[in-house]
């Protein structure tokens, strides 16, 4: 325990004195945090669905939980069930094999619901395109509210995208119901 505490103290709060290089990035993260908090005023529950991605997009979504972006600290949670979700964050071109699963996940998400298509594949089919095995972009399968291009989009872009989507629905997901 002692060692853990020592390491925690030694690490400090990594977003504190920023290396000059990351200053702009840090300010932006803080600004987005403030804006999200102002709009939401409460928690946002996100259900992530990999509908055929290469897993690169997922890695950057994971990065949102690291202490630099600290998305959970904002009250934004990734939840296990679509029934608990305000937002679906969908990655990948939709593979033909995931098409039905994605549609059912969408149907299981209570309204009002937001759908964000994350990554080039989700936005326009990306490098995999449309084929016998791929339905291409997410909006070919379910309605999409906002897109976040990039391959994969870095965590900051994902934060921006979530903010943009929430702004479209200023009452912030479930609060409306």
């Amino acid at each position, binding site marked *: 325990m002692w060692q853990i505490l020592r390491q925690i103290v030694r690490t400090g709060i990594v977003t504190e004195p920023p290396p000059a290089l990351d200053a702009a990035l840090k300010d932006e993260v803080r600004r987005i945090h403030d804006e999200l908090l102002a709009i939401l005023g409460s928690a946002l529950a996100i259900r992530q669905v990999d509908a055929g991605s290469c897993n*690169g997009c997922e890695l950057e979504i994971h990065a949102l939980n690291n202490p630099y972006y600290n998305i959970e600290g904002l009250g934004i949670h*990734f939840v296990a069930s679509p029934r608990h979700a305000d937002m679906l964050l969908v990655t990948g071109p939709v593979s033909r094999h995931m098409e039905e699963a994605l549609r059912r996940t969408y149907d299981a998400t209570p309204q009002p619901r937001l759908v964000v298509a994350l990554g080039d594949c989700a936005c326009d089919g990306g490098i995999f395109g449309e*084929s016998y095995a791929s339905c291409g972009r997410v909006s070919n399968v379910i309605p999409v509210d906002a897109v976040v291009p990039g391959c994969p989009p870095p965590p900051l872009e994902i934060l921006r995208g979530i903010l943009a989507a929430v702004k479209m629905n200023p009452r912030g997901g479930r609060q409306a119901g």
Partner: protein
Amino acid sequence: MRFAELHLDLQRLSAPLPIWHARVDRAGWIAVAAQVAQARGRLLSVWGRSGSTGPSVCAAFATPEGLVWAELPLAGAEDRYPDLSDTFACATRMQRSLADLGGLHADHANDRRPWLDHGLWATAAPLATAGAPAGAAAGTLPADYPFVRVEGDGVHEIAVGPVHAGIIEPGHFRFSVVGEKVLRLEQHLGYVHKGIERRFTELAPLQAYRLAGRVSGDMTVAYAWAYAMALESACGTSVPERAEWLRALMLERERVANHLGDLGALGNDAALAFGLAQFSRLREDWQRLSQRAFGHRFMMDAVVPGGVAGDLSLSLRDEQRRQCDELEREVRRLRHIYDEHAGLQDRFMGTGRVTPELAARLGLAGMAGRASGQAVDLRHDHDWQPYRALQARIATQQGGDVAARVALRFDELAESLRLIRELCARLPEGGVAAVVQLPGHAVQGAGWVEGWRGEVLVALSLGAEGRIERCHAHDPSWQNWPVLEHAVIGNIVPDFPLINKSFNLSYSGVDL
């Protein structure tokens, strides 16, 4: 084993690693497999080809001397070939996929259920059709998959997926349990099959490295390098030394990033959120420097045919060396904490064990294999640059449990940091890319790279007009997914996420 004993007409490809191609007949196909097995070699991959020369089935065998790519041409309308699964257990799923994608079937195979085909393609054997294959009509639902049932008193089934509870790739797991104890796990994958191997044939050879780098996002460097090596070996391109060193530098950076991610996630899965916070912070720092040094947080599109996309300044090399020193200190402290943490060790020790004997029998590959005593690592086993110059060391553990897979990641991390420092310090001068000249006739090439998860193989055939006729990409997860089914037997259901994470296998890389 001596290659001479195989009595094959072996043709050496011009790759930096020893790789041979040979055409065989049915007897030769069986004989090679038997001899490789006898010499404790491994089956790496099975795939099919259909092209101007008619259909053929291919197998890649890894031997201490190098890689043998055996190709068995099938005459006329013949669609059967001798089954390899009796000799190599890991052949089963690869052969089932070959039946789905290429319409070629293994004789007398025990398991003939479809694997990648979920009943949603209108065109059977999409890789063997000349035109663009069609998907099933809209509204068609996936076919039922015939899982094996476990009968008995108090046995019940738990079905999980394809949409999992966490942020991970989709797949389906069917557990048969008594109380909390797992009697059997059966996987059903293929959910992220997006027609990658077909897509390759639609791209220009000089561009398709981008697709290779997206077979599995966390192994982008390994796949892009394997693809580049395959194309360069087909075209006889010699890559500048400096470019090969920069590739190795990126490959090690990719290994470090993934090991950092896994070590954090494994701590978290055993209820030590502190571990996730610490390792994810280190990983973020690491990715940011990768972005500055190679233009992308994962180094996607940084390995290109002929070399690498950009050069590396002296100051960015110095920065990487400093980062390695610092990271080494931090990781050493964290390793000490992991080792001393009773709660963590209690969850890790003895969980999800694969004994070295079982690992050898089932062909457990790569990092997970090394944690079960399988001393295989291309960086160490073959004489190729720059790994030879740096004398890459192999790491192994004997325990075969989650604890061993954690320890192995720590060991490999330390070695990669050493390699990165050396690669930065001793980087040879010169250009970073050669021009790749496509030959005007049909050729083939192969690339073989030790990615962080294990060996990646890319086998490439170009047609006479310089188009990609077939590009097969193999992920070590093919070998390891079936072993995971064994590793969980007798464990409790709540330990599955931990065991699964300790293997950290790719879905996209095997679903293709």
